[in-house]
């Protein structure tokens, strides 16, 4: 009882605000000559304070069945900076994600959604996807049969920092998490055996500075190169696409063809990879362009005017013209103007013209596919990118992580309410069986799409165009794809 009372009293304290307390703890620990104390024992230790880790802890704290658990967060970054993240209304971070209605519903259920800056979130209502080689096109919108829970919204564009910042605010409101941020994990090992306890199966996270945390369940929310996954001896298999994702925050000539109330996401499949322009509030949009590392390097090196022209070309000019523009080290703006005059296209079926790029937002990262062999081990669970890394073409990466978290929290809730030890593999089995196949199918579909559209010519091109046109004319099939994208479709 006493321990529970003390547990309750531990409020959310970020490390920088509690140096005093930590110093005292450190002194106290010395008396135990390096061995762990009861204070170092947690029910859940989450390594990684990104969207997956933060929503896991938020969900555990918000759920009455699991809110009595002793939980800790270990994060390398200084969370107070993310917590107080703020940008002027006309500036947007270049790392954005499309949140599906089911992710938003989950974030709302755990009380986090209202803590996001709502005027920085942009719902969109239509998707335009077309084949850059053949021009075959598919349009997605809810039409006359809107989704009952979300209306005509397909998904929500949001800066990742707006999400993590909102989650941190919600966590602070809930309290009860021991936060170790700006922390370096030195080593993950196992606990010891004493007369009283046998913690040899309990993962122990050793932080630089001597702090150690013993975990009934160690959650790896620590990204694609997950140290927790390595500790658990779980392999992640997959391949690199030989492609980079180029991101940037763009300014358009207007708020979009449908105005502020009817925003459209655009994606064009080019032989080098898909290029997508996704709406942000006002006349802003975010770019995700999957392309070769060479093209990515060129894009990052260009002056703003040429960069903008290349982006506009990507949605308008033929792949042959685009290839040529990529061979030029400068002068894309002039070339684009000239070539555009000789390229027939429907203005309203491509995004509005890009007129600006925000300084410092052009960046790139390598694309890969990875899937861990399993998500669970004895006293270990992996969520988000630690479990799987997906091609960004369907914007599902972050949503998959939220799906993992939702499922893991449900699994933990069941274990707690039935007296199971929540860290054992047996207790974690439902999480694995619920998520593994679903994620695997999605990883596979996005991978096949990427490969299908990487082909620039030959018999595959008319076939895939036929497929796209066919899907477009078949309403039930289209709703299936839309429901999948919205994250509320048939569970596959």
């Amino acid at each position, binding site marked *: 009882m006493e321990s529970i009372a003390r547990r309750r009293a531990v409020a959310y304290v970020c490390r920088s605000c509690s140096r005093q307390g930590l110093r005292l703890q450190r002194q106290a620990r010395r008396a135990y000559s390096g061995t762990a104390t009861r204070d170092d024992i947690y029910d859940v230790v989450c390594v990684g304070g990104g969207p997956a880790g933060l929503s896991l802890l938020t969900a555990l704290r918000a759920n009455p069945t699991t809110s009595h658990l002793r939980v800790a967060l270990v994060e390398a970054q200084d969370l107070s900076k993310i917590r107080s993240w703020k940008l002027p209304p006309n500036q947007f971070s270049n790392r954005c994600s499309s949140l599906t209605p089911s992710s938003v519903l989950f974030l709302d259920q755990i009380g986090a959604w209202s803590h996001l800056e709502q005027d920085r979130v942009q719902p969109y209502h239509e998707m335009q996807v077309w084949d850059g080689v053949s021009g075959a096109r598919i349009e997605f919108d809810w039409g006359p049969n809107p989704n009952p829970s979300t209306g005509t919204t397909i998904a929500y564009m949001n800066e990742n920092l707006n999400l993590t910042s909102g989650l941190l605010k919600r966590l602070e409101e809930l309290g009860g998490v021991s936060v170790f941020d700006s922390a370096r994990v030195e080593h993950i090992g196992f606990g010891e055996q004493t007369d009283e306890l046998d913690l040899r199966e309990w993962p122990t996270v050793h932080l630089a500075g001597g702090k150690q945390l013993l975990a009934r369940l160690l959650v790896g929310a620590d990204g694609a190169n997950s140290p927790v996954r390595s500790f658990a001896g779980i392999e992640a298999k997959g391949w690199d696409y030989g492609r980079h994702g180029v991101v940037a925050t763009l300014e358009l000539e207007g708020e979009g063809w449908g105005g502020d109330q009817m925003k459209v996401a655009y994606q064009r499949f080019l032989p080098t990879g898909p290029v997508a322009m996704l709406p942000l509030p006002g006349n802003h949009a975010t770019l995700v362009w999957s392309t070769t590392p060479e093209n990515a390097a060129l894009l990052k090196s260009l002056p703003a005017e040429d960069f903008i022209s290349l982006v506009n070309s990507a949605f308008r000019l033929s792949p042959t013209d685009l290839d040529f523009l990529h061979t030029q080290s400068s002068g894309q703006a002039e070339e684009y103007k000239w070539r555009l005059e000789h390229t027939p296209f429907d203005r309203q079926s491509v995004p509005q013209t890009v007129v600006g790029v925000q300084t410092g937002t052009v960046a790139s990262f390598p694309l890969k596919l990875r899937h861990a062999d399993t998500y669970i081990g004895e006293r270990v669970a992996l969520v988000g990118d630690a479990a799987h890394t997906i091609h960004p073409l369907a914007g599902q990466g972050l949503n998959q992580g939220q799906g993992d978290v939702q499922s893991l929290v449900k699994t933990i809730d069941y274990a707690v309410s039935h007296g199971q*030890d929540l860290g054992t593999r047996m207790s974690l089995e439902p999480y694995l069986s619920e998520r593994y196949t679903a994620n695997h199918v999605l990883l596979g579909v996005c991978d096949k799409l990427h490969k299908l559209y990487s082909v620039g010519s030959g018999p595959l091109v008319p076939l895939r165009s036929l497929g796209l046109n066919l899907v477009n004319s078949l309403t039930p099939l289209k709703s299936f794809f839309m429901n999948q994208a919205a994250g509320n479709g048939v569970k596959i």
Partner: protein
Amino acid sequence: MLRHARQSVGIRPITTGSPLSRPILAARRDHRPLPASPGRRTIPTRHHSSSSSSSVNPSEVSHFTALASTWWDPHGPSRILHLMNPLRHDFITRCLASSSSSSSSSSRTPPPLRYLDVGCGGGIFAESAARLPTTSSVIAIDPTPSILAVARSHARRDPSLSSKLEYLDATIETLPASDEKYQNFDVVSCFEVVEHVDNPAAFLERCGQRVRPGGWLVLSTIARTWTSWLTTNFVAEDLLGIVPKGTHDWDKYINEDELRAFFGKREGWGVPVVVGVVYVPGLGWKEVKGSEKVGNYFFGVQRVG
């Protein structure tokens, strides 16, 4: 006792303790009796003659000794018990929710519960009961020392248990009756136990004495039917091997109507709650209405007097 291969057939005296004294047919190569017709009978007061006053059968003890090392292996022979455990809690929750309101005042949160787990084995249920926030303490008893050693050593792996869970090398008969610590439990449980004791009537009587007025006696066991012989002895033990050979002695199974009759005749017990469950390979345990007549079932009865 026709349980262990190392015991020679026929040592166990065929008893006449039960009204339906059924001959055990010629022992086959697997040392297993064929089922007699599963008719209704009263709960036996003795399955076979024994000089001890205990309900515990020594050969049962030796059978479970052999299982001790694998008790907590989730993929070992006890997996099916591990999988059943959450349903035990669901069942107890259902019983407590149906409690007649004699003892608890309605609006406030109920006081934490004291459990006595009889025949706790390696502690699958006892540990889980102790982990529940609604539990104040669990006393878990078993007469098999090697299994208790496993239970104690396993409990050391969870720091949350030491303050709430206590194992005792005892039977319901040897548990001190005078000590208040061992009296007036909110829940007395004996899961998958009555089919292993020699004198179920006396055993249940003694378990019932430890329940506080308003508390619950909960148990689970298997009905004695052709189906249960086929599923638990033949299919589960011989064919699939998902239950260790020699775990079940079909002759000792008790039917739910026999349990109902047993408590119906006694003063101070309420109307029993009965739920049948079926193990579906690949899906796990499922509640199936009516299956209490043919296979595994939970039985709970509240002490009202």
